[in-house]
């Protein structure tokens, strides 16, 4: 009897068709903070597993109870099988993991440096600051982990679909830009210059850089103290000789995202800011020729009996109150209150519809689906199944 209060004038995002397409190997769920990305990613992954895909879902910061529902008790960076999840023919499976960005960075170092050098890097104060608090490390490591999971899937045949939740960044675009930023920073001019002495005789320092560099180190030393630059220099020298450029790594994962086997699902709530973020993201994907599957409009108001308009409901409520007084304890008072409630829900739905229409008008070709605002948060597999069912068929 309840239906979605927001019917989008857009092609339907067919989640089941997307999940049935074996060419799709990676699904990235992205969007503004607080719109339900993690829940959407988990619901998509569960639905895929129950339709026969072998799925690994990487979440960034799930609510405790949702994590528990997927059998994740600690943030240990290792995919673990979610017990009891399979498809009717037994072929589907679901693994879930939570990203630990520091651990992932440590693993990259450990995998590429000999033990002694790895220890030196891990103990470096600059490395510790970078790996735990650099704005962008989380995005970089999410990409890094995605690359690792994909490599493992290819090598071992463990998974045929990886679903990724994206970090709660300032902007959804950060997921695409931060790795490149970190990569180019670490491979950048100043860091090269800083480490030049370690690589011999100031090679590659241009005239300008040499001039500016004295000023630069002078100012930095003044502000930060000399030790910081020494730490940075040691770190970069150590890391540079052990494995290839950060930028190359970032570029490789970026290329993976452009692959036809990847599908982006942009999640938004029917609110101005969330839809604006979604718009930015969709435009960016189009500009970069990246594969967009569509929009999930989450938490939309459900309506019952849309043919009774708010105006009709309010007029009827007023008529009842006029005739029978406004005694809240009478059936008349109750009926009038329920009619006003009906009008209120319809109005909220109308406002959401209006916001959604601005999005679909600006991006007419983008497929979309809606998920209703559910009474409580999702924290069990049945809840995820319910979300998955709405994703496939918004009613």
């Amino acid at each position, binding site marked *: 009897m309840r239906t979605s209060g927001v019917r989008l004038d857009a092609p339907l995002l067919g989640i089941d068709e997307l999940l049935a397409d074996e060419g799709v190997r990676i699904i990235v769920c992205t969007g503004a903070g607080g719109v339900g990305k993690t829940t959407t990613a988990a619901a998509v992954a569960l639905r895929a597993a129950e339709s026969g895909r072998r799925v690994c879902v990487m979440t960034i910061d799930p609510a405790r109870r949702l994590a528990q529902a997927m059998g994740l008790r600690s943030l240990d960076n290792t995919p673990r099988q979610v017990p009891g999840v399979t498809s009717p023919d037994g072929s589907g499976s679901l693994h879930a993991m939570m990203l630990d960005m520091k651990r992932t960075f440590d693993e990259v170092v450990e995998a590429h440096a000999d033990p002694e050098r790895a220890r030196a890097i891990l103990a470096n*104060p600059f490395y510790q600051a970078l790996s735990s608090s650099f704005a962008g490390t989380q995005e970089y490591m999410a990409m890094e982990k995605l690359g690792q999971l994909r490599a493992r899937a290819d090598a071992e045949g463990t998974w045929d679909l990886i679903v990724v939740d994206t970090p709660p960044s300032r902007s959804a675009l950060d997921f695409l830009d931060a790795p490149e930023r970190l990569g180019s920073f670490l491979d950048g001019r100043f860091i090269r210059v800083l480490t030049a002495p370690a690589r011999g005789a100031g090679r590659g320092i241009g005239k300008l850089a040499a001039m500016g560099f004295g000023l630069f180190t002078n100012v930095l030393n003044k502000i930060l103290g000399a030790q910081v630059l020494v730490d940075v220099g040691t770190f970069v020298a150590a890391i540079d000789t052990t494995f290839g450029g950060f930028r190359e790594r970032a570029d490789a994962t970026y290329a993976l995202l452009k692959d036809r086997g990847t599908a982006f699902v942009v999640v938004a709530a029917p609110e101005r800011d969330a839809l604006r973020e979604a718009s930015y993201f969709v435009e960016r994907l189009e500009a970069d020729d990246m594969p967009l599957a569509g929009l999930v409009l989450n938490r939309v108001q459900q309506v019952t009996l849309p043919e009774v308009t708010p105006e009709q409901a309010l007029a009827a409520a007023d008529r009842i109150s006029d005739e029978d007084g406004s005694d809240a304890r009478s059936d008349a008072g109750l009926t009038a209150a329920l009619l006003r409630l009906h009008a209120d829900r319809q109005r909220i739905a109308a406002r959401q519809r209006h916001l959604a229409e601005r999005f679909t008008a600006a991006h007419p070709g983008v497929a979309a689906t809606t998920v209703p605002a559910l009474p409580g948060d999702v924290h069990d597999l049945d809840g995820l199944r319910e979300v998955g069912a709405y994703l496939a068929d918004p009613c």
Partner: protein
Amino acid sequence: MNSLRAAMTATWNYAGSVTTASLGPGVALHVVSGKGGTGKTTVSAAVALALASQGRRTLLMEVEGRQGIAQLFDVPPLPYQERKVAVAPGGGEVWALAVDAEDALLDYLEIFYNLRRAGSALRRMGAVDFATTIAPGLRDVLLTGKAIEVVRRTDKAAPDAYDAVVLDAPPTGRICRFLNVNSEVSGLAKVGPIRNHADLVMSVIASPRTAVHLVSLLEEMPVQETIDAVAELRENRLPVGGIFVNMTRPPMLTEEQLDQAREGRLPAEQIAALAQQAGLRQDAATVAAALVLEGQDHAQRVDLERRELQRIADLGLPTLTLPLLADGIDLGGLYALAGILREGGVR
């Protein structure tokens, strides 16, 4: 506007749980944080407006490069310069500033080293970006440092001093790290000027002159994040102010009616007859069934929100409830929210 005001005052008394918050006296820096999507920029702006009443001057600052303030007050993007964005009731003024770490670093170099020109040259080379990048803590010290510089104008009775500064801060997940600049730079710089600067910043932030407020919604995740943030702030000895429960909707049924809905006792036949008498032409039984279902949904939502509100009340902090504005946030709505905050003790 009057009816809007009346409706909102009713909403403000939501569930009768409002405690009067004394967020004003003695506090010079109001830091506002909250989970993404809870409306912290809107609440920050409303707080700045509420504090600016009666001829006072407040500064509203943002630090994340979003230009959220400009969008909210419907003015062009803010430069790194204090601009008047609104006039408050009683002749007060709200000024706004979008702080940028690079500009704040140049400021810092000029104030402490008289290095403005060198700073500009460094910026052209991309060195400023480099410096704030290699020292993540540096960026936060510069941003919070700017807020402290403004606060300290009052001590010097400077002509450009403000009565209060409201900082639209990063979300709850990052707030402690953002404010706790001392421990952030201590990993990087154990001695030196930036360290001294960080100490100065901490002497204001970890004092009763600062209050960190959190914005929440009556939903499970935002409330959990609020509870976690309060614990983390207390652990870090940062001064917790109050909680703003944003976007609330009042129950539309009386307690008795909610009971009827919960217990499945809504009388469908009577509702059908009354709706038909009132002129609804649709099939009466269908209308009644729909209204009953909506009533039950509503009771369920009210129960859930009350549970969440209780969890917030259990924190024992000053709590103010703000209504969901049916037509979204515009300037009129912002003034109305500021009015509610003033009545609630934000003044």
